[in-house]
């Protein structure tokens, strides 16, 4: 694997040469500062761009074109990273080496990608009203459907409650009423901003055919790079004065518990790797403390784990539990965290966790998307990529650093989605 990074006309181009995959993956990211007022515009724009183009004016013709490209996969996603809005356009297609075909799929794929980016379907200079309506309906349906995945739903509710007054608590796609108000002209404006004012990066992974890419990428896909500052870190925070505890009734068989902690440890800060180890040690693998104590020893949960939001400074403990065991689970979770804060951690578990984390890190390099994700993260936050160093930083984390990281955790919000009435866990409502 060799990585080649160049910056031309403010566009960052990263080529990852590897012959382990049978595909070529291209990912073009457009980054802009996130705005609550226009986020719904970009969310819908990404969908409308995926819907049709000038040459392929319907979903059907666009799908058929992708099928003709040997089932090439086109992705147009919209997301928030830190304080940035990111629209990603990706295309995965089979490397020509594996096809008994005369023509070059690579060249066809690049031409197609340009069609998607630079030739959207317009009517009198604006995006089509009917395509907007179609995608609006589908997006709203998807948002409503999130309620059906109870774990996801409970997590979203917890995040929104915990960060109610902060950017992080705002809906990524905007509210349903914002989505309902988007007009074709809003999409046109958003498209102009995306094309002319965003920071652009291109990642290509695979056994890259130099001839196809070096000769064609720039000529085929026209892009205007910009030298703007986009913050991928969201360090907005606030003092926790009292613990929020929310119990919401919903007819679920298994209650969904989410516990949100704040921490000032973010990616790029000194304790970052210690926090990674801490999160994994508590709930990242089958030997983690929560899994061992709450699931195995006490049979109190079917699933339990932690998520660490590294560019926000938030750690969430998620568990699927029997609602009647709510207080017991809460007590055990807090007890485990207090124990680490007080310095009780087995050295063996620390070593095991580090081994697990580095194993997980290397495994990411066995998939094209995992590779792009991790290389992009390192280049964004560090400016360079060094796999050996990343693994060493994990190995070098000390017990003291883990204890220090654990002391930054402040309980903020507890959210329980429960099928039956239960009493509050935090009776005194004091800070912990």
């Amino acid at each position: 694997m060799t990585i080649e990074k160049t910056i031309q006309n403010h566009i960052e181009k990263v080529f990852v040469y590897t012959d382990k995959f049978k595909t070529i993956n291209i990912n073009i990211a457009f980054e802009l500062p996130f705005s609550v007022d226009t986020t719904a515009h970009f969310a819908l724009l990404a969908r409308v761009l995926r819907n049709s183009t000038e040459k392929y004016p319907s979903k059907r013709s666009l799908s058929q074109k992708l099928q003709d490209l040997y089932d090439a996969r086109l992705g147009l996603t919209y997301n928030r990273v830190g304080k940035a809005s990111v629209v990603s356009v990706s295309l995965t297609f089979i490397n020509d080496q594996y096809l008994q075909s005369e023509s070059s799929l690579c060249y066809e794929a690049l031409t197609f990608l340009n069609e998607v980016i630079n030739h959207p379907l317009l009517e009198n200079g604006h995006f089509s009203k009917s395509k907007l309506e179609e995608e609006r309906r589908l997006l709203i349906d998807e948002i409503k459907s999130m309620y059906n995945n109870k774990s996801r739903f409970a997590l979203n509710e917890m995040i929104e409650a915990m960060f109610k007054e902060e950017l992080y608590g705002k809906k990524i796609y905007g509210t349903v009423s914002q989505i309902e108000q988007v007009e074709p002209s809003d999409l046109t404006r958003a498209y102009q901003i995306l094309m002319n004012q965003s920071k652009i990066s291109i990642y290509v992974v695979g056994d890259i055919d130099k001839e196809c890419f070096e000769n064609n990428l720039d000529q085929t896909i026209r892009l205007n790079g910009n030298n703007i500052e986009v913050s991928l870190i969201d360090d907005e925070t606030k003092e926790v004065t009292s613990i929020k505890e929310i119990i919401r009734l919903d007819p679920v068989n298994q209650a969904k518990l989410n516990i949100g902690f704040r921490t000032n440890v973010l990616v790029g800060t000194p304790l970052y790797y210690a926090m990674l180890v801490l999160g994994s040690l508590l709930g990242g693998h089958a030997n983690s403390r929560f899994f061992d104590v709450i699931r195995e020893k006490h049979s109190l949960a079917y699933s339990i784990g932690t998520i660490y939001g590294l560019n926000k400074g938030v750690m969430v403990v998620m568990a699927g539990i029997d609602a009647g065991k709510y207080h017991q689970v809460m007590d055990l979770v807090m007890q485990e965290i207090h124990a680490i804060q007080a310095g009780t951690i087995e050295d063996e578990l620390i070593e095991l966790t580090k081994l697990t984390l580095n194993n997980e890190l290397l495994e990411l390099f066995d998939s094209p998307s995992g590779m792009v994700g991790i290389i992009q993260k390192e280049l964004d936050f560090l400016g360079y990529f060094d796999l050996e160093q990343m693994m060493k930083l994990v190995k070098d984390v000390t017990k003291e650093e883990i204890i220090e990281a654990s002391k930054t955790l402040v309980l903020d919000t507890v959210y329980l989605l429960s099928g039956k009435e239960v009493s509050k866990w935090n009776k005194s409502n004091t800070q912990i």
Partner: protein
Amino acid sequence: MEQIKYTDLKETLYHEKLENGLEVYLLPKHNFFKTYAVFATRYGSVDHMFRPLGSNKLISVPAGIAHFLEHKMFEDAAGKNIFNEFAKLGADANAYTSYNMTAYLFSTTNEVTKPLHLLLDYVQEPYFTEDNVIKEQGIIEQELLMYLDDPSDRLHLGFMKNIFFKNEIKTDVGGTVRSIKQITSDLLYTCYHTFYHPSNMVMFVIGNFDVEHILEEIKANQGKKEFPVASPIKRKYHTENEIVKRAYKEIQMSISSPRVAFGVKFPAFDLSSDEIVKKELAVSILIDEFFGKGSLNYEEMLEQKIINSSFKVATVLENNYGYFVAKTETEDVDRFIQYMKSKLLSMKETHFSQENFLRHKKVVIGDFIRRLNSVEFIANTYIDYYMRDFDLLKVLSILEHLTLDDVLDTLTLFKEEAMSAFVIKPKKKVSRKSNSLT
């Protein structure tokens, strides 16, 4: 050691059958960090009725026992946590049970030999007691309850219960809260001794390792163990024709909008493994033509707001069971069912061009090659097809011989009496709540 070269795919597979009957497949991928090993038995959730090793009597065991057994394999006599043992070696262990097999696996980016021995050893050393069976019943009950909250699982199971009378495929892999309570350690041992004989098992290792060395290690491990003489396992299944048990059923759940599964049951077949895989491909192409994202019907259903992006189709066709199913969220359940039914029944009157057929072939080729990026896909799917006596890496040669006529021949499978719908509607009280979800 047999060497099988797939030149077009640039892959070489190594194969050997050991003296005790274990089939070993090794696929080196030197540029990967990971090695992924799967040790699997031809024993899944559909194996309810069989003749135990050393007995002449056919017995029937509780639903979910294969999955239960899989959970219990992770406990040993010394009380060690198996996951922990793998983790200490820098490997990540897991297991899964499907309809036709139980698979134990690990992946690692570290040294391979030790976790490989551990994998072979723990799966070949069962330890079941009444106490640990009772404890497990509690854990699996929680797992089953979790699935009960998942509308996708409920929809699928509901549809299966609609179309099958007795076929074992209609029961969830995990069984039911009631059936797992009937499991005892004696029953677990009976199943274990019958199905975990090496001659009923396969090992597939893929990734970054030396072929000769790994084969020697596996042989050495197996050579040290003794197994009784194997006899062919007698199993019995309830095969059925295409008539469905019921054409319609609905339930209520706490969901935002109604969901439907509408589909067609296929009769049991008695075909060779190549023929059945070919037939499955043919039906998939037929469905892609009429209901895929590039089809007129899909476009029309979206325009008429009958479906949304949750719409999905799936085709399963094996000798013992088979079905086609389309699932979606929809505000208009009846229109969706009527639409699907009329379009399925009129497929035979609609022209299917050679040009479209060639495009669908390209999709199968592209989809297959793309998936080969993943070592997990290769190992898991290779074993899945192995259980069906088919070589996964030969899929494209089957496709090469597939003609449009083969596809059109499968039209006769889509009969009205073979159709069924299962519907989940939102609970009244909850749908009010969900409207305020903005």
